[in-house]
């Protein structure tokens, strides 16, 4: 397996992205509130398409978002649907959805995805930074 890794620095409106195809560890972290999310997530989705051809036996995605807008919510759903496809193909896929302890809205957002996607979302309280 010789999958290219992707690292994108976070900005005030777009999240940090770290996709490691050799380790099977994926990270989306920070703020996702761009005006045009489709454009931003296109590279993540095409990376996942390539990764899905020869995935690691185990894939872990950590989602650690402080804010995301509704423009990003469909893109995140597309990311989770790619991973759902991986699981259907027999791979072990795990999603950890992080939220700050008092942020019940972010917890509920994770539950929204958990209800739609056939993957287990582990709800994790974010460590104080």
């Amino acid at each position, binding site marked *: 397996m010789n999958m290219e890794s992707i690292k994108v620095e976070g900005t*005030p*409106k777009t999240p940090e992205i770290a996709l490691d195809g050799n380790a099977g560890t994926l990270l989306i972290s920070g703020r996702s*509130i761009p*005006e*045009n*999310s*489709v454009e931003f997530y296109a590279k993540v989705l095409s990376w996942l398409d390539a990764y899905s051809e020869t995935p690691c036996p185990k894939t872990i995605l950590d989602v650690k978002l402080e*804010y995301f*807008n*509704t*423009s*990003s*919510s*469909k*893109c995140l*759903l597309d990311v989770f649907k790619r991973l759902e496809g991986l699981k259907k193909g027999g791979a072990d896929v795990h999603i950890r959805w992080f939220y*700050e302890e*008092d*942020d*019940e*809205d972010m917890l*509920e957002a994770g539950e*929204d995805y958990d*209800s*739609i996607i056939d993957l287990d979302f582990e709800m994790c309280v974010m460590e104080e930074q």
Partner: protein
Amino acid sequence: MLRAKTNFVYQAQRTLGNIDVFGIYDRLEKENIMLSFKGYLSEELLNSILAIIEEKMTHFNAEAKTKKRVYNVLVECLQNLYHHSMADGEKKEQSIIVMIVHHAEGYSVITGNMISTQDVENLQTHIRQINSMDPEQLKELYRQVLNNGSYSSKGGGGLGIIDIARRSGEKLDYGFVPVDEFNSFFSLNVKIPK
């Protein structure tokens, strides 16, 4: 500190040109308006408004959860206005109004913009439907639209107002004003209780 009275007598002048400067200041002050902008909303300006409000709110004594809700609602409202002014792929450079209010009961994000009069009926039906729902029904509607909804090329697509209503937890306050043969002014007040 009160200054000593002066014997100097001057003429009160609150209106300059046609503009009642003191009147506008006094209204903004009495209505607890943290920020008010009227004009064309560029992406740069949208970013600046978000940064200003985020910075101002760090000084307020409110729960982190409430501040996040205000920020989220503001993002959705501003991006709705921004995308609306970019409809049909070209900038219409239409002017909008946005106000952020901080009062004893909480916060309000108030927006106003011109829409085509033929869109009023659909928008009104959409908001009435949202206002008729309890939180559990709103959650179901959000999940349904997220999963099945069709989306514009920018993403979003019908989720914005549902998300705003969920975070507010209050009924959306809104109104329309006929402006001319083709256009109507749409105003929205989203309340975020403390």
